[in-house]
Each structure stands twice: as C-alpha cells, then as structure tokens.
C-alpha cells in the first residue's frame, strides 16, 4: 500500500531572485485561471470533447519547463494546456483550439488534447497514454545524430508506466544514450485506478533505474524543488550523459476529465492535498522572505484574469474553418 497522504507543506528558503520567483508564481496563476475558465466554458458548452485540467499540478509543469531551453523539444500528454502556455503558446490560441476555432493552434482539428506548437518545439498533446515516449526517443535520436545540443523533455503520467511503450522507450533511450529527460508526473491515479492497484512495484524510480539510468524523485508540489532538480537533470542530459528519469510526486485537485464522478478517492484525501496547493504554499514562502506582498499577488492574479478574459474573447471572436477545407492537412499535397 502506498501512502496517499500529502507530503508536509513545502518549506525552506527560495533560492531565486524576486523577479524569477514572481515569474514562476505568475505562470502557475495563469495556468490555474485558464483551467478554471476552461472548466466554466466546458459547462457552458463552448468547449466539448475531453477536457483534462492541470489544477493542482502547476508546480510540476512550471518548475520543470522553466529549467529547459527554447531549443529543447517538449512532448506532452492530453493534460498539456499548462505546458503549452508556459512554453509560450498564446493563451488565446490555446482557448481558440479548445473552442474548435480556426484561430487555434491546429485550426480546431485537435482540441484540448492536441496542442502543438512548432515555434516553441511542442510536439503535442498526445491522447494515447504512453504514446509520446517513443516519439521523444526519436527526437532524442535525431538530436544526437545531428550533433544538436537540444534535449527532449517527455512528460507523462504514472498511468503510462504500465504501458509497454514506457519500458521500450526507457530501454532504447538508455541503450543508445539519448538526450531525453523522462518527466513522470505521478498524480497517484491513472484515471480512476490508484497506482497500487495497477503496479506490482509502486516505486517508479526503481523501474526506471532498472534500465540503467539515474532516477530521481521530487515533491511535485514544491516548485523550488521541482525546478532545481530539473535544472540539474537537464544539465546532465545535455552534457551527453544519457537519459534521466524524474518522478514528480504531485496531485490533481480536479476530476480526471469532465466525465469523472470521482468515486475512487476520498474527499478528505483531496482536501488534504489542497492544503499543499502549489500557489498558496509558494506565495506564503515568498511573503515570509519579503519577496512578495499581497498587493503584488493580487496584481499577478488580476493580470492572469485579464489574460484569460482576452483569451476567451479571442476564442469567441474566432471563426470556423469552412467545411470545404475538411480534407486539408491529411497529406502535404
């Protein structure tokens, strides 16, 4: 049986200057507000299909992505709105994609689960659990064969660890010493199945280490720890030491998707994890160090809300692709 209780609240000094700390805080707030609005717009019928929210897990994506370089490749999952945003995709473009509008990143062909951005080297948005891992191996292989300095960061959940693709990919990456950083966002549940109900070995680092790569575990609710460990990990991968596995122990506060009645976990468990919410714990640490005032926090929040409002307005003003163009982008020509 693994422990579903939340870890102690993140504490300790924040080793960053105010500007950088506030930037990361702002990104977490931007994700939170965007996701809340997405849920609202889903309820209003403006967003359809599946919608998987990142609420609760913000410290992981924000901390990790800020440890990477613009030339690096990102491979993500269907819970990737936050990754796309932090990587630099315009919030309006993300929202327009979820609305199914032509102004979305994929002209409405992909929706919530398929955010792609060539400019920021975001290779999706993959709705097959584990589906992104082999792709990341190939991106790593291409970089190595072309002597490029870029690394590939591949995000996936604990559920993916049960897929064959996970094992094949970690083996290939280690065998060929590829510059791939495997970022496992362990939120304890693969949809409704708790980790200990699907894994005979619940220590995911043990699995990764069996492929002869370093495997690190970190409190995914602690943005400082997330960022620092990812920075070190990325440095090692970039130095050509081969792949590395990081397990971010995190928690999603909301349902798996909008169709989830959450019958598989206790409300008390969720409530306990919410007390470790990455935004308020990080804010508290910054305030204690004098790096953040309540006014500054409110300003960050107001800016995020304004950005969200503008994104919704952009999506709503967007247009529908003409049905005559239905067959475009199947082949090059």
């Amino acid at each position, binding site marked *: 049986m693994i422990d579903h209780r939340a870890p102690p609240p993140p504490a300790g000094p924040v080793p960053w200057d105010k500007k950088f700390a506030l930037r990361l805080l702002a990104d977490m707030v931007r994700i939170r507000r965007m996701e809340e609005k997405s849920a609202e717009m889903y309820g209003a019928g403006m967003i359809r299909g599946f919608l998987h929210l990142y609420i609760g897990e913000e410290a992981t994506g924000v901390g990790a992505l800020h440890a990477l370089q613009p030339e690096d490749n990102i491979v993500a999952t269907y819970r990737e709105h936050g990754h796309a945003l932090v990587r630099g995709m315009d919030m309006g473009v993300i929202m327009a994609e979820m609305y199914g509008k032509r102004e979305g990143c*994929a002209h409405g062909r992909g929706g919530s689960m398929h955010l*792609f951005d060539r400019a920021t080297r975001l290779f999706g948005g993959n709705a097959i659990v584990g*589906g992104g891992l*082999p792709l990341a191996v*190939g991106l790593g*292989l291409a970089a190595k064969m072309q002597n490029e300095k870029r690394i590939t960061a591949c995000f996936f959940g604990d559920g993916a660890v049960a897929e064959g*693709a996970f094992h094949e990919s970690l083996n290939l990456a280690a065998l060929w010493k590829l510059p791939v950083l495997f970022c496992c966002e362990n939120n304890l549940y693969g949809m409704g199945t708790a980790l200990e109900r699907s894994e005979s070995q619940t220590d995911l680092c043990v699995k990764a280490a069996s492929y002869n790569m370093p495997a690190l575990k970190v409190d995914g609710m602690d943005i400082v720890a997330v960022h620092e460990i990812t920075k070190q990990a990325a440095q090692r991968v970039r130095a050509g030491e081969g792949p590395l596995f990081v397990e971010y122990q995190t928690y999603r506060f909301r349902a798996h998707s909008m169709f989830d009645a959450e019958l598989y976990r206790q409300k008390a468990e969720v409530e306990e994890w919410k007390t470790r919410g990455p935004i308020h714990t990080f804010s508290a640490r910054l305030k204690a160090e004098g790096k953040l005032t309540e006014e500054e926090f409110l300003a960050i929040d107001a800016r995020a809300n304004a950005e969200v409002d503008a994104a919704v307005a952009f999506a709503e003003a967007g247009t529908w692709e003409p049905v005559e163009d239905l067959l475009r982008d199947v*082949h090059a020509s």
Partner: protein
Amino acid sequence: MSRKLNYREAMREAMHEALVADPRVFLMGEDVGRYGGTYAFSKGFLDEFGPERIRDTPLSELGFVGAGIGAALGGMRPIVEVMTVNFSLLALDQIVNTAAAYRHMSGGQFSVPLVIRMTTGAGRQLAAQHSHSLEGWYAHIPGIKVLAPATIEDARGMLAPALADPDPVVIFEHAGLFNMEGELPDDWTVDIRSAKVRRVGRDVAIITHGGSLPKAMQAAEQLAAAGIEAEVVDLRVLRPLDTATIAASVAKCHRAVVVDEGWRTGSLAAEVMARIMENVFYELDAPVARVCSEEVPIPYARHLEAAALPQPEKIVAAVKEMLG
C-alpha cells in the same frame, strides 16, 4: 541496355543509393546491422555506413517505430524496417495514432517524413502468426501512403520517392518475390501515384498487387493458351488507389477479377470492387469476381496453405466461370 537482378538486390541497391545520397537517411530495425538484414537486404551496410546509420534495435516494435516517427520529426529521414507485417501489429498504435494523424492533428504544423518497410504475405509454410497479408488494413488509414512493389523496377525505384515524400509511407514487400529475377532497363522511372498495366488484354481485367502479381501473370498466360486475353493491372499504390487506371481497364475489358491475398471479408479487393461499381458499373458485362485468401488462419501444412491462398488455377477458374 538492361541488366538482370533479383528483387532482393534491387531493394538493397535502392537503400544503398538512399544512404549514399542523403546523410539524413538511416536504417533502423531488428537485425538490420550485424546480421545483415533478416532477408539480407542490408548485407554489408554496417561496415560501410557504421552503427549510427545502420541501427540494430531490440525487439521493441512499438518503441522503434515510434522512435522513427520522432527522428523524422527531428529532421532525419529514417527507413524503419519492421521485420514482417505480423510484428507490425505491435507497432500499430504508433503508426495509426501518431504517424498517420500527426500532420492533421497539429493543423499542418508538423509532418512525418518516415518510410516503414515490412515483409508481407504467406506461401512459405510459416503458419498462422507469420503469414499475414494486412496491407489492406493499412490502406484503410488516411494520412499514410501504402506501396506494394511487385516488380524489379518498383523494388528498385519506389524507395526514393517514398523518402522524398513529406508524409509517412509504408512499403509492403511480399516474401514470395525476393528471389524473383528480372530485367531492369537503364531508363527506368517509377512513381508512387499510379497503377500500371503489366499485360495488355481485352477480355477480362485481372486487378491485383504484390505477391499475387506473378500468379495473375501466370494465369493470364494459361488463359491466353485457351484464347482468352486477360489484361493485368498492378495496383502498386494501395493508398491512394489509382481509380482511373482501374476504371479504364474495366471499361475496356468489360469484365474484372480482383486478386488479393488478404482475407475476403473487408478486403482491399472489396474496395476495388466497390470503386468499379461506383465508376464503371454500366461498362460491366458480368458481376465482378474476386479471388482472395480463404477465411482461415493460414495453416502450416503445404497442401492446406496452398489451398488457402490465391493461386493461378483459381484465377483461371474464376475467369472461365465468368466467361461461361
């Protein structure tokens, strides 16, 4: 001038040419390197091009096909060899859910210039798990091109345009063809768009592809001895199908038999027949017939395997029945 070579040599030459021509091209798959290729297609390549470009993989079809997709996205031009179509089932997710859909679901931002080659077909007493002809399945999927080289020219010539294509291309090589010899003219050119008439006739169009092409040609010779001139159409490109060439041949012969080593139900043959109905129904003097594999997992015993597959005799019989 022309020169004689077999299918295996033609394919080997094509890959060699591609590896020499473009440093982005590399070959990856099970036993392509030290072993020299399961069917010796890449014999000697490891010494010539080195282990980076002639990359032996573990038995991880899902992993290395997906890695091929990623490498293509990352700027390389991989040739991924999946030993046989039977094992490609382990990689279907990456081919269908990723490679085929990637351009579309990214709104045209990304393309996957990947070539996947695999052996297909039965006829070597390899039983139920090593005898599939599933190219019809792949031909069902928008977003990939599906090729079936059945001549020396196509074995030699289809790879280059496949590698030049910005989208994923899957090439099916029928194991029954590997030792086939033929003349390669000096001025050969092939495309990956069209079907081709391999034998001109007037009484019936026999439409086929891959390993069934030589069988159809044999059947046509036997029919000629009986005074029936069959036209043989080699589909070559299974997706997208060249409907115009099929329709032209049927319009000319007014009768058609489709030969396909896939199982009858839901076969590529069924698709070809449907296109004939849609396009040239009023040209037909008889219902279109087909010769497919019998609906049984392919058996080991020689006589049973032979009975399960399309054979020249079955094609001849189907034509004669049609002509009354």
